[in-house]
């Protein structure tokens, strides 16, 4: 079943690039953007003069400390003298950037688009980059309660544990897997061989969340080159096609719903599956990079995406289905838990990983099965946005 969406041009990814993801980088936001962009152009075999349009993304301006962030880093993203669009949907931004770039190519407006995501969280160093999240709440009804961001994850995680009868041990397995996967990722910040016990014994922040349930604070950038079919054929024998995109929002009044299942994500996934002609996602998706800023989120998102039965993702994880050599490898990159979480760049890193996996270019991270179709997903704002991209070889 194809969706009734008018697509003038098929869209392919032909190159990807990343910076290192690290807690503190010397480079400015522009320099980070430039490094990732240059690497993506190099892989595509293009130069900036070949690029028609630039689409970029970054999370709250308050991290980099410049309330004009898109314009500020734009020169490093190659946007000077070209149509440039910056998009932002909180944590969902990283996967929303290639979605917005897809519009540019699919509509026929641009043929070759440079796609860049950048985040420099370390600049907001005092007292802690997390403090920036004090200003994402409703200023009248929530801010006066002095919430911190970990509360809302903890509230959702505990609801999920209660509703689905999932233990902290089950959830910790995700952190163990992703951090181990990241040991094979040359860009990764938090690769490690840890045990479930290490997660449970790490510092308790907001019960049920411990330190090792959470991805780290990071600086970094990621970039892609996305082109029309005719350019894809000219540039490479192995383009990776963007076959489906999906994105939906719920309201930012996140306390008004059953948190154990993300309906907004289910809707976004259905939009993308329909467009890609996918009817049985569990059978048809070969490799997935769902958003994992917290370990339980990988389980929660697999269920929202229809890649696991409802309340069934923990069992899949226990049985090893989501390992790199499993039937559905999940976060082979190492995810945000292992590679790091420079917010917008982390989401785009997931799309880059699916690109490399489908091309067979993931090196030591390459999944065992012959992966033809892959999915990347991000999530964000206040428990309200899902962004999904489906790619095929």
């Amino acid at each position: 079943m194809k969706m009734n969406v008018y697509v003038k041009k098929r869209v392919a990814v032909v190159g990807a690039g990343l910076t290192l993801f690290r807690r503190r980088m010397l480079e400015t936001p522009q320099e980070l953007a430039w490094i990732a962009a240059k690497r993506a152009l190099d892989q595509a075999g293009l130069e900036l003069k070949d690029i028609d349009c630039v689409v970029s993304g970054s999370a709250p301006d308050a991290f980099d400390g410049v309330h004009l962030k898109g314009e500020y880093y734009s020169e490093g993203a190659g946007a000077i003298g070209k149509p440039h669009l910056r998009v932002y949907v909180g944590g969902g931004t990283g996967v929303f950037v290639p979605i917005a770039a897809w519009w540019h190519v699919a509509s026929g407006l641009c043929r070759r688009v440079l796609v860049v995501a950048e985040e420099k969280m370390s600049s907001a160093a005092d007292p802690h980059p997390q403090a920036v999240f004090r200003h994402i709440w409703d200023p009248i009804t929530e801010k006066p309660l002095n919430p911190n961001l970990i509360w809302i994850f903890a509230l959702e995680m505990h609801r999920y544990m209660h509703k689905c009868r999932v233990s902290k041990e089950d959830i910790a397995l995700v952190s163990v897997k992703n951090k181990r996967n990241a040991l094979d990722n040359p860009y990764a910040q938090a690769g490690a061989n840890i045990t479930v016990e290490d997660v449970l014994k790490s510092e308790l922040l907001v019960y049920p969340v411990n330190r090792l349930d959470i991805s780290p604070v990071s600086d970094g950038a990621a970039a892609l080159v996305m082109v029309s079919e005719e350019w894809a054929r000219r540039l490479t024998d192995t383009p990776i096609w963007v076959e489906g995109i999906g994105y939906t929002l719920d309201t930012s009044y996140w306390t008004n719903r059953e948190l154990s299942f993300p309906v907004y994500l289910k809707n976004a996934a259905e939009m993308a599956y329909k467009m890609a002609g996918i009817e049985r996602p569990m059978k048809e998706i070969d490799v997935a990079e769902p958003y994992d800023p917290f370990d339980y989120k990988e389980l929660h998102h697999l269920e929202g995406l229809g890649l696991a039965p409802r309340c069934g993702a923990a069992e899949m994880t226990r049985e090893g289905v989501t390992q790199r050599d499993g039937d559905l490898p999940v976060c082979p990159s190492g995810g945000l838990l292992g590679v790091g979480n420079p917010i917008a760049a982390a989401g785009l890193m997931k799309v880059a990983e699916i690109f490399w996996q489908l091309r067979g270019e993931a090196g030591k991270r390459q999944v065992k099965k012959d992966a033809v179709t892959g999915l990347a997903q991000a999530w964000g704002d206040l428990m309200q946005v899902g962004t999904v991209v489906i790619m095929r070889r």
Partner: protein
Amino acid sequence: MGVSIRGGTPLRDEEFRAVIKEIDSPRARYSMAAGIAYSRFLEGLKRGEILGTYCPSCRLVHIPPKIYCPYCFKHLTRWVRASDEGRVVTAVVSYLSATLETLEKPEIIGIIRLDVPGHRFSSYRFPGILHRICGASEDDVKTQRIFDARVKARWLPEDKRTGSINDIECFEVIWG
């Protein structure tokens, strides 16, 4: 292929302290008008009432109230008074402040699904608010005994209320 570029220059803590930096501390004070619906909601809190607006199309009661239904986009004109009692949908124990400093005394936070007399809601969408929970122990949270527990608002004394969500001190568990 192009030139090879390093993937960036990571800094250790002591290197970060040593590199040349500009330090900026933006200060901004905001005075935010509460709007049509919230003004009435906050006036209600001052009187010890929790008010919402009812959408005749989806039958949801919005708390905090809206002048429109975000789902149906209808103009909402029917105000209803919710009970100041409800049930705990989820709860956590926070050992951290908003700026991630360690709290001396951990706080219990939860989402409370409020009762609205004469109204029923689906299990997916309901009037739920974020607030502190009192009268429960860390253990009540960790054993999940607190899920579905009945709670009732503990209000500040009337002369201390200012028209704020903090006019409710917390929701107190009524162990039954």
